[in-house]
């Protein structure tokens, strides 16, 4: 088994919530990421799913050290980023890059494609000014954009093309791992398919690792080797994509899978849907014990008593549910 390129150990990201204008006091703590441990291997695609507010994006930002971790560690290629100094961190940023959801908001509208792609390479001294033109052209070809478009501005491109520019920008520094936060959610289905194909091809060709965050489970299953399901800051199920999505075990994963509409009228109308009642609980005031128990059909007194640990089942997946073997 290849060495993990990225390892998270009991990672926690808490945000204090302050109240009061003059007398600031801490009114509560939002545990956005609450004890996440996982490893990503070289060339692996890890899907990260969950509802809005479950901490997926905060987890991504904590990995990249865009928000500081409260506790725990992020180890990238053997280097502990949570303890690293500014210079060391800057060097590590080359290794990990991010693609954001909104291709309209994540590109600087005043920079041409050329400037957008050249800037990181010049900042990190990957090449000289003389060489940069050739490298930009190569990057653009890699993501399926004609190099002659290099002098154009983001507004002259469609949403799918902009997402290609964002992917090219992430690739500019030749990273080992890319974190893509909902990269296809804002795109139409036909364009979505193009970007998914592009990501799959790049991962294969460059042996990239990819953390792929999305709420569309069919997209996640298509692209990912393994999937982690998050609920209120914790991983509740982690395993091979086909296992987790086709045969979910945690009650929350089951509900999530059953909520995805299938583009097939006969199947869609025949199947029984688990409709979860209510919204996810407030992260400011999470329920005691298993955070999912107020919405769970299988919850017992045991579930309310203690937070269930993530435990490995016989098929290798990990599930955080005390009743998983009975239900």
């Amino acid at each position, binding site marked *: 088994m290849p060495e993990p390129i990225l390892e998270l150990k009991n990672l926690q990201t808490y945000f204090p919530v302050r109240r009061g204008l003059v007398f600031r006091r801490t009114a509560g703590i939002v545990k956005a990421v609450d004890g996440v441990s996982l490893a990503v291997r070289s060339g692996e695609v890890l899907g990260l799913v969950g509802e809005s507010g479950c901490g997926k994006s905060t987890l991504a930002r904590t990995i990249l050290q865009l928000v500081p971790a409260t506790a725990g560690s992020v180890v990238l290629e053997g280097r502990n980023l949570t303890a690293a100094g500014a210079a060391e961190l800057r060097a590590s940023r080359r290794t990990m890059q991010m693609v954001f959801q909104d291709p309209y908001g994540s590109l600087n509208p005043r920079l041409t494609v050329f400037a957008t792609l050249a800037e990181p390479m010049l900042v990190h001294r990957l090449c000289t000014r003389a060489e940069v033109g050739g490298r930009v052209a190569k990057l653009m070809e890699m993501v399926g954009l004609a190099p002659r478009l290099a002098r154009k501005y983001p507004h002259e491109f469609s949403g799918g093309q902009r997402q290609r520019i964002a992917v090219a920008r992430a690739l500019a520094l030749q990273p080992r791992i890319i974190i893509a936060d909902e990269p296809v959610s804002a795109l139409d289905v036909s364009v979505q398919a193009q970007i998914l*194909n592009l990501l799959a091809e790049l991962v294969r060709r460059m042996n990239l690792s990819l953390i792929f965050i999305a709420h569309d489970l069919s997209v996640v299953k298509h692209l990912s080797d393994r999937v982690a399901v998050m609920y209120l800051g914790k991983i509740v199920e982690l395993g091979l994509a086909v296992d987790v999505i086709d045969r979910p075990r945690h009650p929350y994963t089951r509900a999530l899978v059953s909520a995805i509409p299938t583009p097939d*009228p006969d199947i869609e109308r025949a199947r029984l849907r688990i409709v979860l009642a209510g919204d996810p609980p407030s992260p400011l005031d999470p329920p005691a014990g298993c955070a999912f128990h107020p919405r769970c059909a299988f919850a017992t007194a045991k579930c309310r008593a203690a937070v269930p640990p993530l435990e490995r089942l016989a098929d290798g997946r990990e599930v955080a549910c005390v009743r998983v073997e009975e239900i």
Partner: protein
Amino acid sequence: MPLLAVNGLRAYFHTRDAIYRAVDGVTFTVAKGETLGIVGESGSGKSVTCYSIMGLLPQPPGRIEGGSAIFDGIDLLRCPPNVARSLRGKRIAMIFQDPMTSLNPFLRISDQLIEPLIIHEKISKAAALRRGVEMLEAVGINDAARRIDRYPHEFSGGMCQRVMIAMALITRPELLIADEPTTALDVTVQAQILDLIRRLQRELGMAVIFITHDLGVVAGLCDRVLVMYAGRAVESAGVRAIFYQPRHPYTRALQRSIPSTQQKGAVLFTIPGLPPDLSALPAGCAFAPRCESATALCRGSDPQLAEIAPGQSSACLRVQAGEI
């Protein structure tokens, strides 16, 4: 007789540089109690079609160039403003994609919720509030009597969408137009909202026009489907026919590009090229430049939506000729 019959609707946007043909000759009907899905990608004219019917098209730059939308004998596109106002929010209601920005943040839920009742029915404020609380309970908001006095920011996205639905349905409309009402929501919340729309539709016997780009939602909710491309309807059929015997190359291509219909990890089918520029539509069929089956004929003559099987229409010349 259908509840709503839209015939040859054309709505263009006039800008300084060009004319954008956002909706260019769309014809469809909605029967009483029926759910019609309108699917298509961004810019295909789904929303503009519904905005035109509701009289919400910003004019200028938009302009309704032609066609009619007959609702119960009244042409919504040409009737006097006071007649249109008496229908809108009373017999025809609409809900929008983004519930967080569609509610007025300065007004309490109660004021927004009962406004349609106050305007359209001779009802006292106290009675309207009672109906408001009942309606909030019907859409699944617990503790409605207390929550009705809250402001929108105190509600989650799913709850705001419930409030929007309550507001739209409080006057018991005969037609609900839903413009991507679940696109901004999580799948679990989407499942709740779709359940709610289905249940209320049964109880009130209303017709629904459901705009979406999610074919999965269409499969579970709609009776009939209209597929739009570049401002035109390219296919119209019952929901099973659309999924099991699609008769337009664009409908087929759309279905083939969804990951869940493909084998895991396989290269996904993609439609080559981009949707056309609506200010400079190609001659002939607008989909021809991206179509696998296009011939010289497709680029030359303008296809019209025509019935090719009972209840199924396609605007593909080659399908109409029985070639594909």
